[in-house]
């Protein structure tokens, strides 16, 4: 899983029918200190995450195990909203 910040949304009216009704969030990868890392991913929202929230992203086939993502063609899902990151 990766840490990311929600920085936007993607609107796509013409898309696979199984993606209808799914919110597509633009997730900027961040490091544990909250600083931007290189890269982004467009992920399906499963936890009603809001803009600027720090979230947990799961990618690959595991994304299809997320709530409401069974049998839909996705490779990334937002599966948690981060309360706190603590490091030594």
């Amino acid at each position, binding site marked *: 899983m990766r840490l990311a910040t929600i920085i936007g949304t993607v*609107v796509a009216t013409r898309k696979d029918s199984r993606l209808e009704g799914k919110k597509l969030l633009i997730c900027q990868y961040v490091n544990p200190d909250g600083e931007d890392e290189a890269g982004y991913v467009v992920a399906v929202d499963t936890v009603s995450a809001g803009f600027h929230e720090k979230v947990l992203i799961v990618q690959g086939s595991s994304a299809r195990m997320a709530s409401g993502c069974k049998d839909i063609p996705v490779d990334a899902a937002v599966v948690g909203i981060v309360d706190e990151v603590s490091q030594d």
Partner: protein
Amino acid sequence: MIIAKVVGNVVATQKEPTHHGHKILLIQPLDLSGAEIGDAFLALDDVDAGVGDRVLVVQEGWSAAAAVGEEMAPIDASVVGVVDNVDIT
């Protein structure tokens, strides 16, 4: 999924049976400012995308095959949406 631009088509007559009937698109990944980033790759088409379209691409095996209606097929990338808008806050 990533945002990318369709930059071309590939024709292959001799190929996997499960690939027949699906358009092969040349896909250039984009960063969030719209600039090209990384190398182009190939994806099958699920949404009738054309050259110049900005698209959403899935790169996981089951998802990519399911997107074009195949099962147990050697497909690792498919176009699953045509992007209307990218809204960055």
